């Protein structure tokens, strides 16, 4: 049998042994290809001028992803080398040269990687279509399926994987080259060395690491870049210290409580846990670190997603909005001239926002919610303008009863203001509350229909008050093209240099394009990273667990002989599994949940509809993470249960 045949056969067998790893590499290749597809897709980059920066962002994220996949490949090939060293040693024993064996190992891993890459690229094409559909829908462009094979994306994916594989395999090759037969034959008996050996220093490390963990999380929550960085460093120290010293804590705990230790199947479970941590503390810590990064990137992605979505709607409800603080009667003339000539308008209205008499409602809102205030007064709107604007926007009509006022606010203030029952005084007349509306109404930024909220009052009362600012609002027949938007801004900038008032201009299309581009540049890479991180970490944990099949089989074989019932053995295996997979997920949960909650709270007021949405996002983050994680756990559990538990 030739060397290449032998190596092909080994590669096939290896693919079965390491199916989970293989699937992960295929998925990773698919992700890398799909995201590279974004880099090279002229169609998507042309959607907005702001998308120009996307290739750089994706390539940067890809470099991180390549490092992570590189770690997986390097770790797994090293792991396979140790598991198969006896076999490789036997080849040398029967007369093959080290060089040939190294080539054999190299070739078969390359073959496995090559097959994974081909499958991954095919799957990546489908995934790219999904990304393309999402991106197009962000820009409100209709999606039509068009099969596209990007040579550039393929080339970049090939380059990344070549780097990953060649680096990992050259390391293994060097190791095999310099190994003696007896080293190879005994290589699989070596465990990861215990990094901290002495019991006392372990306990000290344990305590110190917990302190670092608490400090790190606190610093991370402070929301300052420098403290955040220090906090992240502290968390890394915590994770490594914790996992390297934890295995001393568990036996010490049970040593003092023999009754607990010997009750039920605790003994088997706690010992298997402490043995695992004793030998793979560094790996566990690294995986916990990756999980933390996963949860943070996935959660941040979701939070940003929610923020972009709400901001897109909140920034302006009109197709075109111009706000001006100028009192000049002809302040909109320059713009109107351009609009008349270039932009087909369906309906438009110019109106004014008036100054209320005091800060009565602003102060109430400030005392009870998070809000930005721009004015030294509550803002007012004429009921006539309000009714006309509602009609223009297609909102249901609202009537204002005599002697009443209406509140129109951002949706997150709805609940708070519905509870407001005090009258207000405008131009000497007292008005009673007449209801609250909270449709999108350009209240998120300055110069809009109030900031956060506005009071709608009878026309004559508003007109009796001084003007705050003026607004031109239009609904156009088609989305305002980017060029026209830039032209209007140019008019604004020119007026500004003439010493005029700095006007605010929004076009719904431009805002949407900006949000969509931000989404594509921030949210996509975060999800990309999170997916790869989850898969890589879960794979390493799973490979470790599956490689212990022999030990588990011996354990359950013995327990069966000693008279343990099959039902009980199943329970022990399940618990050993549960704890093994829970361990590296607990510290990341403790760190990332408060972090995400704090991040959600740090957004501009009104970006999220309230704490409920924030917690829903945290919940969704955990849901997605655990869904993927659970798939890996189930794969490992079903495969192991079959092979290690004695037949019933």
């Amino acid at each position, binding site marked *: 049998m030739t060397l290449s045949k032998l190596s092909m056969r080994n590669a096939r067998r290896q693919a079965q042994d390491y199916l989970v790893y293989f699937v992960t590499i295929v998925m990773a290749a698919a992700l890398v290809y799909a995201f590279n597809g974004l880099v090279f897709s002229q169609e998507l980059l042309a959607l907005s001028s702001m998308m120009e920066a996307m290739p750089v962002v994706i390539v940067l994220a890809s470099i991180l992803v390549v490092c992570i996949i590189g770690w997986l490949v390097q770790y797994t090939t090293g792991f396979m080398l140790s598991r198969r060293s006896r076999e490789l040693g036997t080849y040398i024993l029967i007369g093959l040269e080290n060089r040939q064996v190294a080539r054999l190992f190299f070739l078969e891993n390359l073959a496995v990687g090559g097959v994974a890459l081909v499958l991954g690229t095919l799957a990546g094409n489908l995934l790219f279509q999904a990304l393309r559909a999402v991106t197009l829908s962000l820009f409100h462009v209709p999606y039509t399926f068009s099969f596209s094979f990007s040579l550039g994306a393929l080339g970049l994916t090939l380059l990344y994987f070549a780097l990953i594989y060649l680096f990992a395999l050259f390391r293994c090759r060097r190791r095999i080259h310099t190994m003696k037969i007896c080293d190879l034959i005994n290589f699989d008996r070596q465990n990861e060395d215990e990094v901290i050996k002495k019991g006392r220093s372990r306990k000290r490390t344990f305590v110190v690491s917990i302190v670092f963990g608490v400090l790190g999380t606190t610093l991370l929550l402070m929301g300052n870049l420098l403290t955040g960085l220090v906090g992240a460093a502290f968390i890394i120290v915590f994770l490594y210290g914790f996992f390297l010293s934890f295995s001393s804590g568990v036996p010490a705990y049970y040593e003092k409580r*023999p*009754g*607990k*230790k*010997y*009750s*039920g*199947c605790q*003994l*088997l479970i706690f*010992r*298997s846990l*402490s*043995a695992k941590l004793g030998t793979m503390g560094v790996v566990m810590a690294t995986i916990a670190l990756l999980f933390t990064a996963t949860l943070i990137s996935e959660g941040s992605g979701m939070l940003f997603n929610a923020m972009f979505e709400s901001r897109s709607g909140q920034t302006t409800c009109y197709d075109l909005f111009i706000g001006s603080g100028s009192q000049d009667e002809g302040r909109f003339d320059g713009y109107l001239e351009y609009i008349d000539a270039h932009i087909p308008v369906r309906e438009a209205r110019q109106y004014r926002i008036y100054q209320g008499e005091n800060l009565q409602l602003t102060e109430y809102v400030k005392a009870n919610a998070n809000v930005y205030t721009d004015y030294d007064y509550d803002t007012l709107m004429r009921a006539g303008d309000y009714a006309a604007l509602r009609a223009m926007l297609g909102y249901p009509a609202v009537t204002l009863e005599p002697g009443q006022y209406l509140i129109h606010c951002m949706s997150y203030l709805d609940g708070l203001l519905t509870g407001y029952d005090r009258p207000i005084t405008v131009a000497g007349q007292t008005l009673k509350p007449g209801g609250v509306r909270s449709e999108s109404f350009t209240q998120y930024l300055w110069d809009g229909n109030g900031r956060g909220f506005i009071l709608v009052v009878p026309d004559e009362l508003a007109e009796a008050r001084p003007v705050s600012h003026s607004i031109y609002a239009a609904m156009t027949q088609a989305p305002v093209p980017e060029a026209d938007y830039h032209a209007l801004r140019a008019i604004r900038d020119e007026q500004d240099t003439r010493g005029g008032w700095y006007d605010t201009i929004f076009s719904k299309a431009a805002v949407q394009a900006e949000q969509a581009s931000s989404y594509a540049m921030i949210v996509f890479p975060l999800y990309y990273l999170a997916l790869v991180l989850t898969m890589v970490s879960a794979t390493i944990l799973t490979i470790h667990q599956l490689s212990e099949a022999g*030990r588990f089989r*011996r*354990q359950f074989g*013995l*327990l*069966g*002989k*000693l*008279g*343990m*019932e*099959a039902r*009980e053995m199943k329970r022990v295996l399940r618990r050993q599994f549960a704890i093994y997979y829970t361990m590296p997920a607990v510290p990341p949960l403790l760190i990332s949940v408060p972090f995400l909650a704090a991040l959600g709270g740090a957004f501009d007021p009104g970006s999220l509809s309230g704490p409920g949405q924030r917690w829903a996002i945290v919940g969704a983050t955990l849901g997605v993470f655990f869904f993927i994680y659970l798939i890996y756990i189930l794969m490992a559990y079903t495969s192991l249960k079959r092979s290690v538990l004695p037949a*019933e």
Partner: protein
Amino acid sequence: MLHVQNIEKYYGSRNNVTKALDRISFTVEDGEFIAIMGASGSGKTTLLNCISTIDAVSAGSILLDGESIAELPQSELARFRRERLGFVFQDFNLLDTLTLEENIGLALTINHADSHTVQEKVRDVARQLGIEGELAKFPYQVSGGQKQRAACARAMVAGQSLILADEPTGALDSKASKNLLEIMTRMNRDMAATILMVTHDAYSASYASRVLFLKDGRLFNELIRGGRTRPVFYHEILDVLALLGGDVSDVI
């Protein structure tokens, strides 16, 4: 205590049947120390597996304390093994991740013993077997002899009525073997343990009070020590082995 009556065990398919045990009958009384000897392939381990309920007989019956093992339903077998049988294996079969104390305590845990008394019971047995000082160590930290003593302790700590030992000295050097055999003798004499030991080593067998010889699945001979000294008994065993043909080289 144990009645083995005409048991037979066949392996293989219809066209190729191997008879591993052929109409074997014997009885073990309470407090006996019995060795089963024979060459490789003579059926020693099959016999032990049948008695230990790990394997089922093809014909015949095995009664332990009057209860027929063959008639026990599958679910009862596990309970039977943990309550009545103690095992000592050639390769110790201790769990690497557990200390010696925990390995011994495992037998009690599986038996759902009161968890607060486990430690005390383990220490008690360990003291009698001379491994009290090693209880906190892991199997890889102690010698083969100590491991095997821990295995013996596990085999009797839960009050099992019959200890089944499969080549217990197989992985030990001569000094450790001697030590272990003396301990097994003590377990038999002072702690009233009934022991059934499979071995192909005449020296080990000479510690038993009775030796059964198997050849090609059949009971070939039986030697009772009676009042003889151990060296004399040893030579008698060697004589039988010479008759059995061919295992002498193994025992010298």
